[in-house]
């Protein structure tokens, strides 16, 4: 439990700095801003507050009541009941790595298992204890690559088919730094080979997404090779479910793999908390941000877990650390660990196959509806781009009347170059009937 300062302690502190009261401490804040009128309604009882919040919650639409074809980075997958049950056990139910971590062997073991699973899934050698979400993990990859070259290479190439929110987050992280981003000036739906001529000996990192934001699956062997020939690092942002059937990035030259871990047993929850996956090669481990749990033996020769290589972290290395962030999503990492353990290798493959086949069935059916065209020509995983006969925003509003949460309106992120374009996601949660309902609804809402 967190125990705040006692009155006695406060008095001693105030006395030490030579002031008489806490108010004196804030005198430099202009008086009119010191105690602003908040104009709050009177307090409620717990029962009243719960009633009010419940009322607000009922105003939301949710994926239990609607049939969802919305993805764009967050996916509606089935979450086995055991995930939540284990998560809520008192021994685990904290978002924090304990301040004396080695006392909590169970927490450390869970993180170690998580790291091992993600390393195996991505084909990488080392995985940290996680970041906030997929977007911040990409930003940490950029930080790491820049640190790896000690500032001697400052160019970072972001694929235009990277999640737009990842691009935004990288921009935020690198504001005011010497890192120069190259992104988005090229056609988002183009081929990743358009990145090739942009790679040079100033490039620290090339970042692609796999499957990309539009669901497409590309073979990145060549791109990785060209990046390496120029001396740059190569990072791949993944959807972990897709790796149930796709070649792990470690096998085609990734130096860093990041990803959004939400599909692994974490609810949509209006955007968070999610889970940032981050894995790399052993040779870069000292430049990696975040916490790292290692397995060792204690003084009796028994297996034990410790936080390791902590001299990388900002509390020791201060301003020289690659990142100022060591916070991880311990609880969400545990959820993904339980999820992956329950499904196993074959279960994960099965989920990925279901997503793949159902999405392809949906694409085939939608292409048959008059006025609709599937723009995705490449192999894709569980998401594809549909050109609609009218603005996607209007289609989505109409679909809601049918109890369907439509796709992601690409015009929202990309403007008019993506007008009337809908990104449709399909998961194992969508039945054949759901897909047929969508197809019928699309025909009805667009027929003259």
């Amino acid at each position, binding site marked *: 439990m967190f125990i705040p300062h006692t009155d006695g302690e406060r008095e001693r502190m105030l006395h030490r700095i030579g002031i008489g009261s806490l108010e004196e401490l804030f005198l430099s804040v202009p008086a009119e801003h010191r105690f602003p009128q908040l104009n709050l309604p009177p307090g409620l009882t717990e029962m009243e507050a719960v009633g009010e919040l419940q009322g607000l919650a009922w105003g939301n639409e949710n994926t239990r009541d609607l049939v969802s074809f919305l993805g764009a980075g967050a996916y509606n997958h089935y979450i086995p009941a055991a995930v939540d049950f284990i998560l809520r056990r008192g021994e685990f139910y904290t978002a924090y790595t304990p301040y004396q971590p080695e006392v909590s062997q169970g927490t450390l073991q869970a993180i170690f298992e998580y790291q091992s699973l993600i390393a195996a899934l991505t084909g990488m050698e080392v995985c940290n204890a996680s970041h906030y979400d997929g977007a911040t993990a990409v930003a940490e990859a950029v930080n790491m690559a820049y640190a790896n070259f*000690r500032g001697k290479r400052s160019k970072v190439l972001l694929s235009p088919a990277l999640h737009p929110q990842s691009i935004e987050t990288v921009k935020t992280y690198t504001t005011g730094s010497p890192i120069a981003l190259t992104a988005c000036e090229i056609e988002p739906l183009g081929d990743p080979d358009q990145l090739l001529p942009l790679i040079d000996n100033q490039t620290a990192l090339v970042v692609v997404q796999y499957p990309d934001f539009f669901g497409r699956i590309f073979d990145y062997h060549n791109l990785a090779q060209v990046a390496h020939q120029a001396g740059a690092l190569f990072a791949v942002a993944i959807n972990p479910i897709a790796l149930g059937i796709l070649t792990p990035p470690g096998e085609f030259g990734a130096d860093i793999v990041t990803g959004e871990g939400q599909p692994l047993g974490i609810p949509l929850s209006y955007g968070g908390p999610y889970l940032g996956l981050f894995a790399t090669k052993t040779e870069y481990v*000292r430049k990696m941000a975040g916490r790292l749990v290692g397995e060792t033996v204690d003084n009796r020769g028994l297996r034990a877990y410790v936080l390791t290589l902590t*001299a*990388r972290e900002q509390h*020791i*290395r201060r301003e*020289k650390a690659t990142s100022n962030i060591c916070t991880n999503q311990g609880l969400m990492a545990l959820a993904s660990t339980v999820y992956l353990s329950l499904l196993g290798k074959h279960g994960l493959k099965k989920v990925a196959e279901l997503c793949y086949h159902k999405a392809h069935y949906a694409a085939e059916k939608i292409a048959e509806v008059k006025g609709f065209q599937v723009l995705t020509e490449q192999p894709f995983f569980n998401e594809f781009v549909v050109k609609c006969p009218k603005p996607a925003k209007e289609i989505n509003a109409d679909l809601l009347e049918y109890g369907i949460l439509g796709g992601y309106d690409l015009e929202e992120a990309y403007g008019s170059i993506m007008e009337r374009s809908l990104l449709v996601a399909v998961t194992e949660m969508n039945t054949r009937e759901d897909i047929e309902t969508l197809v019928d609804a699309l025909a009805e809402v667009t027929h003259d």
Partner: protein
Amino acid sequence: MNIPNQLKYTSNDEWIKIDGNIGTIGITDYAQEQLSDIVFVEVVVSVGDQVSKGDSCATVESVKAAADVYMPLSGKVIEVNEDLAGTPEQINSDPYGAAWMVKIEISDPGEIAGLLDAAGYQKHIQEKG
């Protein structure tokens, strides 16, 4: 504690061996003892770099701390100990020999007067306690 007479020192626990206009740089026996078991070293300058006195030239990491190594003098880097990264424990076992880090061509001999001699360094670490 070993503080060889023929070397010069900084108050930040670097040593430099001066042969004519060539300076060889490492960290002292006292520094390695304070850091304890060294598990990682990275020289952050490259051959040909012009570096100034006080610039960071290497990072050393032990099981309990990370420390920067700074240039005792200004100059041009002419050699880097490439082997050291693979055997960082040599900083503990042979800080003045195998664990040298960087060699420079000294560009401003006037700066040498600002370094400590063995007696001065001995006094400095005694005062630090």
